[in-house]
């Protein structure tokens, strides 16, 4: 089974964030970037399926130069090949514009499955995989918590998470796009051997014109939505911050819970 996995590089969720000078995004200088969490789970699921079916995984990433680090990590984890969509025209795209570029890149090759994370930890559209599916004309599922191949790979039993602690199980014909939820598996760590091998693997580069797309179809120009500004949310009154070292803060807090909030 040949599987395409889309991975996105996002700011580390633990990082301290600042709003950029133009107020329209976050300041990316000195920001640590990592592979988006649910994408790591998607990659692990794809690698496991590829191993069982004697197939291979190709990782796709759209973004600036730094995206190569994420793709290199994907190769170290076991992907056979990486494709880097890099072009100034791709910048500032919403999910529809980004999905259009990724679908065009994936459509250049033959795949049985496309896997993505369910949502990015930065802008969080939760939509790119569904849009790729629409453009490829394949069925899709979002928030996938289980995949079981059937009948020599022409269909799969898929489990999707629903609200209130329920899962739904259904059969999906392949090829399909699966948008994987974090927690579906236990992502592996890269081995030293994997890291060494990754250095020899190919990272193909594709520009907007390589994909046969116009600059007006991708990036900010191809998006129906534009970001006007970003801000830290107004938090209303917010918390009363209790200062001091651990011991004095703990004592002060317990006192307040007892006498002010009266919940102890």
């Amino acid at each position, binding site marked *: 089974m040949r599987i395409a996995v889309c991975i996105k590089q996002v700011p580390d969720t633990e990082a301290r964030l600042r709003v950029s000078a133009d107020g329209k995004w976050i300041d990316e200088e000195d920001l640590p970037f990592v592979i988006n969490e649910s994408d790591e789970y998607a990659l692990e699921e794809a690698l496991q399926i590829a191993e069982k079916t004697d197939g291979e995984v190709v990782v796709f990433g759209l973004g600036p130069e730094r995206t190569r680090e994420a793709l290199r990590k994907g190769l170290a984890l076991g992907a056979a090949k990486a494709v880097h969509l890099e072009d100034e025209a791709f910048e500032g795209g919403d999910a529809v514009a980004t999905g259009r570029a990724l679908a065009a890149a994936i459509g250049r090759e033959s795949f049985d499955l496309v896997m993505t994370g369910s949502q990015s930890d930065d802008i969080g559209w939760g939509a790119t995989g569904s849009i790729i599916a629409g453009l490829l004309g394949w069925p899709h599922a979002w928030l996938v918590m289980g995949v079981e191949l059937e009948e020599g790979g022409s269909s799969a039993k898929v489990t999707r998470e629903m609200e209130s602690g329920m899962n739904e199980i*259904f059969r999906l014909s392949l090829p399909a796009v699966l948008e994987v939820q974090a927690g579906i598996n236990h992502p592996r760590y890269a081995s030293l051997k994997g890291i060494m091998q990754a250095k020899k693997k190919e990272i193909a580069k594709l520009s907007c014109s390589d994909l046969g797309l116009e600059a007006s179809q991708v990036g900010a120009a191809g998006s*129906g939505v534009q970001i*006007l500004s970003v801000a830290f949310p107004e938090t209303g009154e917010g918390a*009363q911050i209790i200062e001091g070292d651990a011991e004095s803060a703990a004592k002060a807090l317990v006192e307040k*819970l007892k006498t002010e909030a009266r919940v102890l």
Partner: protein
Amino acid sequence: MGKKIWAVAQQRAGELNRMSWEAIVAAQKLARLLDGEVEVVVLGEGDPVKSVTSDLARASVQCVRTADHPALASYTPGAYVGLFRSAIEKALPGLIILPHTYQSIDFMARLAQESGFALVPEVTEAGLEDGRLALRRPIMGGKLSAKVAIKDGSSAILSVQSGAFAAADLEEGDGAPSEALEFDAAAVSPDREILGVEEVGGEQVDLSQASVIVAVGRGVGGADKMAPVEELAQALGAEIGASRPVIDNGWLPRDRQIGSSGQTVAPKLYIALGISGAIQHLVGMKGSQVVVAVNKDPGAPIFGVARYGVVADLHEVVPALTQAIREAKA
């Protein structure tokens, strides 16, 4: 922007998802701003969809439009996208507003792309700016929010975040008429064969009744670091809960999860340890009476909903807190 606004209600087996009312409230608000008219749209088959239609009629809207089709008995994105795409071509709504549920997210992106609509998921605020629709939505896991605009003239599909528009603000009327939604029946083609529904590991622990909860987040760092937290919970007589990353990492079982994909709680005291406060977590615990947050990051959104905050490493604060509580109770 067209004047017709659709608010999509969601039902399952005749039970209306309560977030449907919030989508209707958002649509009523936008209709006032844009001088538009609201129609409620609900999909399903037979009695279930009929019963929710009469319930929805109390909203002050132009009409409640029902799509009743055998292939809509169970949700599938293929049937929903096909139906909506053909209905949009006939009725030309300018704005479609859905509740931000897992089901909406599953199909709305594909519908937006296939219908040429702009897509804005997880809206928390809506207004006009320079005559254009401006919408706020969380980014960076809720640490920040972005204000986004729909490009000129484009129709758009929005989903509204749970709790962002209060169902209590619903404008009621004297019974909205019920109408059929026009669509091409041939376009309704399910793309999944539904096999069944299962409960995830069964809910052995019911956190909804707990009066005190100590909840841990990613900041706890590992299953081996839980002992001091357990001692704190014991001193307080509290149940232990967690945010999603803790569960995904296997540090606690899934029945301890609080948030949109876990349990909804409303204790009188909620102590959040190393929880940043992603919106998915906040929706599960915002009914708590008093929230205490301990987090290293002073910018963590959890401090926005907390009454008391301590900006520090939880591993230093927790043992001190256990001690202080034991002394206070002694």
